[in-house]
């Protein structure tokens, strides 16, 4: 696989028999800055363009006049690892699973939001062609109120005092940070920390949350960041990134 400096230089092959839709998708892609877009209305044309243009990614419809996309991806996969994003009006779970199972990188159903198409496209291109920098592997370091939390070392700093999270506390905190601003159910937290049901771990979970609060909250009995959502779970709010 070749590397690319810029995602917008990617060559995109769009395969769809609806001419109007192709126009629109082209418009959307151009509007986002992509320049090299090839369209095929039939699989025959797509085969030819794959050979001659060597595109970086293919946006593929499922129902085409001279065959179906599911068969086509199998055919293509025999000699190429080109990323494929299905864009189909077939919205059944079975179709999506079939498409993804056949080696597609994503499956988007029509009707779709243009922004969603662009984001998904970008993710695939970046993942495939831009090498991941070590910087991105770093875990977040952030402030909760006046406490600085570093998930790389698993520590929390309050003034001069530095405390270490225990393994379970760390797993819970990481899960909450991943979903910060959103509720995480007690079930999901127990699943993450103990791989088991909330039913058997409810009290254990409460104990760990209390200890976690003692480390990250200024006032553990009146939490400002790790909030309880009664009957559901917990929520982490007020996370501030370090500039």
């Amino acid at each position, binding site marked *: 696989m070749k590397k690319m400096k810029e995602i917008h230089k990617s060559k995109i092959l769009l395969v769809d028999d609806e001419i109007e839709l192709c126009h*629109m998708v082209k418009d959307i892609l151009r509007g986002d800055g992509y320049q090299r877009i090839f369209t095929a209305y039939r699989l025959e044309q797509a085969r030819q363009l794959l050979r001659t243009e060597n595109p970086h990614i293919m946006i593929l419809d499922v129902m085409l006049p001279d065959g179906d996309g599911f068969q086509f991806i199998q055919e293509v996969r025999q000699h190429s690892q080109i990323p494929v994003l299905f864009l189909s*009006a077939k919205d059944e779970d079975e179709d999506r699973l079939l498409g993804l199972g056949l080696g597609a990188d994503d499956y988007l159903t029509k009707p779709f939001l243009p922004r969603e198409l662009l984001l998904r496209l970008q993710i695939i291109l970046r993942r495939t062609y831009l090498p991941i920098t070590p910087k991105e592997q770093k875990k977040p370091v952030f402030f909760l109120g006046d406490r600085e939390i570093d998930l790389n070392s698993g520590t929390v700093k309050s003034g001069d005092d530095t405390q270490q999270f225990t393994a379970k506390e760390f797993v819970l905190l990481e899960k909450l940070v991943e*979903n910060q601003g959103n509720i995480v159910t007690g079930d999901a937290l127990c699943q993450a920390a103990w791989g088991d*049901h909330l039913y058997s771990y409810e009290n254990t979970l409460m104990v760990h949350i209390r200890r976690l609060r003692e480390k990250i909250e200024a006032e553990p009995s009146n939490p400002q960041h790790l909030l309880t959502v009664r009957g559901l779970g917990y929520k982490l709010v007020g996370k501030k990134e370090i500039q």
Partner: protein
Amino acid sequence: MKSLIKILSRYLSSAVLVALILVILNFAIMILWMFETRKNTIVDYPTEQVADQLYFENGQYQFSELGREALQEKYQWAMLISNEGNILWGQNLPEDVPQTYTLSDVASMSRWYLEDYPVNVWRRDDGLFILGYPKDSLWKMHTELPLDGINRLIYLIPIGILLNIIAALILTFIFGSRLFKSLRILLTGVKKLEQNQAIDLPTNGILGDLAENLNRTSATLQAQQEALQKRDQARSTWIAGVSHDIRTPLSMVMGYASQLEENMQLPEEQRQRAAVIRQQSWKIKTLISDLNLASKLEYSMQALHIEPYSPTVLIRESVTELINRGANKQHPITVQIHPNAEPCVLEGDEKLLARALTNLLENSIRHNPQGCAIHIAAENNDTHLSITVQDNGNGFPDAVLASVKLPLTPESLDTHGLGLLIVRQIVAAHQGQVSFENLKEGGSLVRVELPFA
């Protein structure tokens, strides 16, 4: 099998009843007939009366007019025998009647016949009066029974009747067994028909014709069902096709509307309108996928992915997902799960059930734009898990409440509000119950009951 036993007992009891009635009827007719015959013979010229017609006057026996008449009408001849055995008087005496009688002659004739003439005998002071019938006109039988035998008759009659009943039972059972064999075959056939299975009954036996009719009925029903299935399938495929075909044009509407919405060169007002087009297109998308799902559930074309799941986890996850998607201060959602519900594990299609729950929550939110509090509770009721979704908003409109009370039929697809219809279909697909009501204090209450397997 129960109904067959019922038929059998009815059949046997009616047969016994018929036998019993016949016995009683026969008995009654016999008694009546005997009584009638006896009355006839007695009323006309009884022997003692005729004997009285003979009197001794002026040294001669005189026979009255009535006596002569009796001989004419009923008897043929008469005579009086002295105690010594000589004929003292005679009227119309046949030639072959002897002139003198020994004691044994008298004893014989008083019971039986005199020279083949049936006779009645009456004792008078002066001798024995004998009335003769024509030959071969009367059958005389002398009955003789021991007295204790007659007494025993009182017990023997009921025993006899009982024996008759038993005999009738056994006979009807033997004659009926073949009928019951055929009946049992028919019965299993009818049961299968009820369960919509194809049947092919053997057509020999007493009820062969009936079996053949049932076989034909089954064939007709099967054909009808197949046709119905085909039609349902066609309908569902058609809806799936239409919703598929709408997607591509809708993509373009949404795509271009989005582009216009984000085009900074356009005036704000225009971009707002484009946003409305995009939002409404999204609603159409949701509607057609709802319609598609409803039609598939209706015609049982939605494959259920049945797996064990924890309903309480499902509730928390569905609610959390909804809140996380767009926390809404106007619609606070509270969850209260009874501890006895926590360990429950049910079998079902988790994705569809989550959809049902989300539909109920979204329904409350959508129909109470002014805001309302939503409360979800779950409890284990021994036989089923009960989930309630309650709000303190406007409640269901009357029309909606009426339509959700109707049974689930293909016509329910006409009802407004696909969301609630899908809830009902999903719950029904899990053999559960769902009820909708408006609360007196305002707001609505939906109760979903999912049975434990």
